[in-house]
């Protein structure tokens, strides 16, 4: 009898520990800066051709062709180019991950394979910024450190609310759904991610 109640305690410990791990990973996730960094990074990869977009703006809005307004035309055109690069990057990114799932080592069962592409994609978002240069990788992690340390205290108080807020504010095109749900419904989390 004593043994069986001991093992149920052990299992409670296991459950709580896993929950704590998940909390930590929320912190890690929230601390990773995204969005503008990724956009800025794309500029390096893709070929330029701003002139196309700038000319396009000129065609659509003939009034901008006056010399005094060239700056406006160029700005709009460049913004379009940036967006195009970003979208192309997203697509390439997605393709990249459909291959990388084969390299992932876990083959316990099918469901873990489904989770793999999503997880590595999200993680790669952070990894790519680091790839931009060693100078960038250091501030990214340092950012994480300062963000994480401030987040810790507040997280200990209100776990669910904060997690949802932060998930919304850091949302990117490729970002994940709110993490709070995953703690309670593991199956739900994997379904939501597949849709994204």
């Amino acid at each position, binding site marked *: 009898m004593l043994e*069986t109640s001991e093992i149920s305690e052990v299992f409670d410990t296991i459950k709580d520990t896993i929950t704590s791990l998940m909390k930590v*990973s929320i912190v890690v996730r929230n601390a990773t800066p995204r969005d503008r960094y990724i956009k800025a990074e794309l500029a390096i990869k893709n070929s330029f051709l701003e002139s196309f977009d700038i000319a396009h703006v000129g065609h659509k809005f003939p009034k901008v062709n006056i010399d005094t307004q060239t700056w406006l035309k160029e700005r709009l055109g460049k913004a379009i180019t940036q967006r195009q690069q970003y979208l192309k990057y997203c697509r390439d990114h997605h393709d990249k991950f459909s291959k990388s799932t084969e390299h992932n080592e876990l083959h316990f069962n099918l469901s873990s394979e489904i989770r793999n592409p999503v*997880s590595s994609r999200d993680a790669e978002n952070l990894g790519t910024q680091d790839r931009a240069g060693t100078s960038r*990788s250091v501030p990214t*992690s340092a950012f994480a*450190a300062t963000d994480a340390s401030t987040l810790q205290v507040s997280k200990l108080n209100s776990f669910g609310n904060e997690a949802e807020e932060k998930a919304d504010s850091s949302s990117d095109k490729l970002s994940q759904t709110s993490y709070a749900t995953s703690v309670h419904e*593991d199956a739900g989390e994997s379904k939501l991610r597949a849709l994204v």
Partner: protein
Amino acid sequence: MTSLDSPIASESNICLQLFHQLCILLDNPDSEGLILPATCIDEFGRFRIWGNNIGALLSFGHRNSLDFRVQGAYKISARVVEFLEDLKEALDDGQRI
């Protein structure tokens, strides 16, 4: 992969194995206690979800790994390792019982 290079990955993998062993042990019809094998399988699943999601199971060489991501933030990696060690201990205890 040396265990010092990617502590999170190695600890996570150890936990995976322990979980697996524990589930096998529980499958044995003799050892029905307060713990159903289904419970163990659920926890195992939760751990795997966590690991997959956060890249804890990838070694340092991969950019996606948790070891890589917490590079600058040693406090976080220390906590993760601490949790993983707790988990390992609990799984060990579970096996002995």
